[in-house]
C-alpha cells in the first residue's frame, strides 16, 4: 500500500511544482514545456485513482493534442524580438494574495468533509485481476456494469453522447480553421488602427506576413 502513497506524492509534487513553474516563468516556451510535464503528472494521478482510461485519454488528447496545438500557437505568434511582457509588480502581488486566499478556502473545504478522509485504496480492489474490458469501455459501448441490472439500472451507455462530442469537435475544428485563415492582403495591413503601433514598424511586418502567407497556403488544422 505504501507504493500508492509514494507514487501519489511523487506525481502530486511534479504536477503542482510544474504548475507553479508555469506561473512563475515569463518565457512562454518554457511555460508550454512545464505545462506538458505537469499534465503528464496529472495523468499519472488519474491512473493512481483507478481511472486508467481517462489517464490514457489525458495523455493522448490533452497532452498530445491540445498542448501541441498550444506549442504551434506559441511558434506562430512568437515575435522576432523576444519581448518580455511582464505584468506590473502590484498585479502579481495581488494575484498571489488572491491565489493564497482561494487556496485556503478550497483546502479548508477539501479537508473539512470527513467522508473524504482516509478510506484509502481497498486492498481487495487492487489485486483483483484486471478485467479484459474495463467498465468504462463497456459503458462506452452501451452496457453499464457498475449498476446492478435487476433494478432496471442497465441504462444505455454513453455511446450517443460521444458521437455527438465527436461531431461537435469536427465542427469546432472546421470553424477554427476558417477563423484562423490569413485574410491579410498587403492593403489591409497599410491601414493600421491609428492608436495601434508605430508606423515605421509596419513595413517590415508586411514583409514578414507575406513570407508566412507564401509558404503555408492554408494553416492546417491542429492534429486530431
Amino acid at each position, binding site marked *: 500500500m505504501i507504493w500508492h502513497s509514494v507514487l501519489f506524492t511523487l506525481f502530486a509534487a511534479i504536477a503542482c511544482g510544474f504548475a507553479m513553474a508555469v506561473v512563475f516563468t515569463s518565457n512562454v516556451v518554457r511555460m508550454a514545456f512545464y505545462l506538458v510535464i505537469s499534465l503528464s503528472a496529472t495523468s499519472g494521478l488519474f491512473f493512481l485513482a483507478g481511472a486508467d482510461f481517462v489517464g490514457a485519454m489525458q495523455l493522448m488528447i490533452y497532452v498530445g493534442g491540445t498542448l501541441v496545438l498550444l506549442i504551434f500557437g506559441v511558434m506562430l505568434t512568437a515575435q522576432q524580438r523576444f519581448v518580455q511582457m511582464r505584468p506590473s509588480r502590484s498585479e502579481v502581488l495581488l494575484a498571489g494574495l488572491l491565489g493564497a486566499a482561494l487556496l485556503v*478556502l478550497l483546502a479548508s473545504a477539501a479537508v473539512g468533509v470527513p467522508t473524504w478522509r482516509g478510506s484509502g485504496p481497498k486492498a481487495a480492489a487492487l489485486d483483483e485481476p484486471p478485467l479484459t474490458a474495463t467498465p468504462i469501455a463497456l459503458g462506452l459501448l452501451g452496457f453499464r456494469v457498475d449498476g446492478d441490472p435487476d433494478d432496471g439500472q442497465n441504462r444505455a451507455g454513453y455511446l450517443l453522447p460521444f458521437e455527438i462530442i465527436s461531431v461537435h469537435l469536427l465542427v469546432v475544428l472546421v470553424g477554427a480553421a476558417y477563423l484562423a485563415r490569413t485574410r491579410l492582403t498587403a492593403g489591409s495591413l497599410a491601414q493600421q488602427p491609428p492608436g495601434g503601433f508605430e508606423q515605421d514598424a509596419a513595413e517590415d511586418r508586411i514583409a514578414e506576413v507575406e513570407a508566412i502567407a507564401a509558404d503555408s497556403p492554408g494553416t492546417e488544422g491542429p492534429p486530431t
Partner: protein
Amino acid sequence: MTPERLLPTLLLLAWLAPLASFVVSAIAGSLLSRRHGGQEGGAVDGAAARTIGHVATGAIGVSLVASVLALGAWIAAHPATDGHAPAATAYAGEWFGVLDVGPLHVGAAYYIDALTVVMAVVVTLVATCVHVYSFGYLAEETAAEGLEAVADDEAPTYYGNKLRRAGRLHRFYQHLSLFCFAMLGVVLAGNAVMTFAFWELVGASSYLLIGFYYERPKAAAAATKAMLFNRVGDVGMLVGLMALWGLAGTFDYERLFAMAPTWMASHYGLATLVGAGLFCGCIGKSAQVPLQGWLPDAMAGPTPVSALVHSATMVAAGVFLVGRIYPLLTVEVLVGIASVGAVTLLVGATLASVSHDLKRVLAYSTVSQLGYMMLSLGLGGWTAGLFHLVTHAGFKALLFLGAGSVIHAVGTNDLRAMGGLRRAMPATAGLMLVGALALMGAGVPVLGLGLSGFFSKDAIFEYAVAFARTNPSYAWLFWAPLIGAVLTAAYITRLGLLTFVGQARSEKAEHAHESPESMLVPMAVVAAMAIGAGWAVPGSRLSVPSLLAMSAPEATHHARTGSAWSGVTLPGVESAHEVDVRAAAGWAAIGATLVGVTSALLMHRGGRKCETPAGAPMRQFDEHWLPSVSRGCDAVARRLGAFVSGPLDRGAIDGGLAGAAGLLKSTGGGLRRIQTGSLRQYVFFLALGVVLVSAASLGVALRWING
C-alpha cells in the same frame, strides 16, 4: 295691494329696468357694429347710438318713476309723526334664491325702509339728470360717422398725429345702465353677500366708466387704480363678512339686526372686528383717508360720470352701508369711523383749496364732504349723516354738471386758463353759485332759512357739539369739522372767483359760449333739489330728515356708552336737539362759513391771483407723493413677483431638480469607469468575487451552526 307687496315689486321694477337696458344695448351695440362695418370693428352710426342712449334714459326714467311711487307708498303707509315715533318696520323679503349650499342661503333679497326709498329716489333722480345731460356733453361722439369720427387729442400716438377713433356713445350708456343697476342693487340689498356682490359690481362699472377713454394712458391707469383701491377696501369687507359668518351663521339683515344685541354682548371683540372690516370696504369705496388717492384720478373719466358716480351715488355707497349696518356697529367702531371722517374732511378740504384743476377741486371737496357724513354717523348722528348725503348728492351733482358745461365750453380743466366766465355763461354761473352756496351751508340760523347744505351741515354740527359736551377728551372731533367748514367755504369761493370772476386768462375763455339747452335743464332740476332738499313740505311735517328719522335704528335714540377701553358715550337724539346745542351749532357753522369766504376773497382779490403761498408744497404732496405711494406698492409687488418667478421658481425648484438629475448622471459615469476592458482584471475580479461570496457564506453558515 298692501305696501308689503307693492314696495318690493315697484323697487324690483326700478332695479331691473337699467339691467334690461344694459343687456339690450350690449347686444345691439355689438350687432350694429358688425352689420354696419361689414367686417367686425366698424363703427355704430350716430342715430343708432342715440337710440341706445334714449333707451337707457327711458329705462332710468322708469326707475325714477317707480322709486318716486315707492316713496309715495312709503309715506302713505307711514304718516310723518313728530319725529320721535318708534322706528317704522322695514319690509324684508326675497325675490328669488341664488345660492343654497349647506347652511348658507344667499338670495336676491330686499330690506326696504325709509333710507332705502330715499336713496333709491336720490340715485335715480341724479342718474336721470346725468343721462339727459350726457346727450349734450358727449355730442361729439355721434357728430360724425365711421372709424375716423372722433378726434382724441389726449391720446399720444406713435407718429404724433391726432388719434381718430369711432364714436362710442352707445358703450357709454351701456356702462351707465350697468352702473345704475349695480347701485340700486347695493341700495336694495337684503343680505350682506348681495351688498358685497353689487358693491364690487359698482366698483367694476366705475372701472369701465373711468376707462371710457381707454386710449388715454391717464384714463386707463386711473381706471385700474380706482378698481385696485376699491379691491383693497373690499378685502377688509370680505374679512368682515367672513367674521360675520363665523359669528352669526347668517347674512340676512333682518335676522342679523335681531341677533345683534346678543352676540354683541357675548363676543364684543369679534363684533368690533366685523364692524371694522365692513367699514374698510366703505373706506375703499368712499375714498376715506388711507384710500382716497383714486378719486381725484378718477376725474379722468367723462364729467357726467364724475357727476353721477364720483360725487352723488357710488362714493356715497360707503356712507349708505355704514347707515344700513348701523345696529351691527359697536361704539368703538363708530368712534373709529368718526375719527377717520374727521381726518378725511381736513385732508380733503386742504387739498381742494390748493389744486389748480377744476374737477380735482370738486373731487377733493367730495372726499371732504364724505368725511363729514362719516363723522356725523360716527358721532351717533344717523339721520344727520344721511340727510347730508342726500343734500350733498344734490349740490355736488350740480357743481359737477356746472363744471362739465364750463369744461365743455373752455375745453380744459385748468383754473389758471379760466376767469371771467360769468359774462359768457350767465346761466351756468348762476347755477354754480347756487351749488356753491349750498355746499357752504349758507343760511340764516335763527329763522331756519337756507339752502339744503345749511340744514344738513347744521344737523351735523349739532351732533358734534353734543358729542364734544359729553366727551370732553374727544373735543377735537368738534374742532376738526369747524376748521373743515372754514376751508370748505374758502376753496369753493376760490373756485367761484377763479372761474367766473376777474379777467379771462386764456383766449379760449374769452370766446366761451353758453352750454346748450339739454345740459342746462338737468342742471336746473338738480339745482332745485340742491335748494329744496332741506325744506319741509309746506303744511305737513314731512321733510327729508323727518323721513329718514322714521328708520333711524333705536340704538341712536338714547345715549350709548362703549366698552371700558374707549370710555366714549354717544349722544342720543334728544341731547343733540336741545335748544342751546342747536343754537351753538348754528352760529358756529355760519361763523366758520363767513370766515372762510372772507379769507378766500382776501387771498384771491377778486379772482386776479391764482397762486397761494402755502399751495405749492400741498400740491406737491397731492400730485407726486400720494401717487408715488401707490406706484411704490405696485413696484414692490412686481419686484417680489419677479423674485418668486425668477430665482425661486427657476433657480431653487428647477435648479434643485436639475441638480438631482445631474447627480444621477455623475454616479452613472462613475460606475462606467469600472469596465477597464483588461481581460486579466476581469479574471481577477471573478476570482475575487468567488472568494468574497464563499467567505461570506462560510461565515453565515458558521454563525448559523453554532447558533
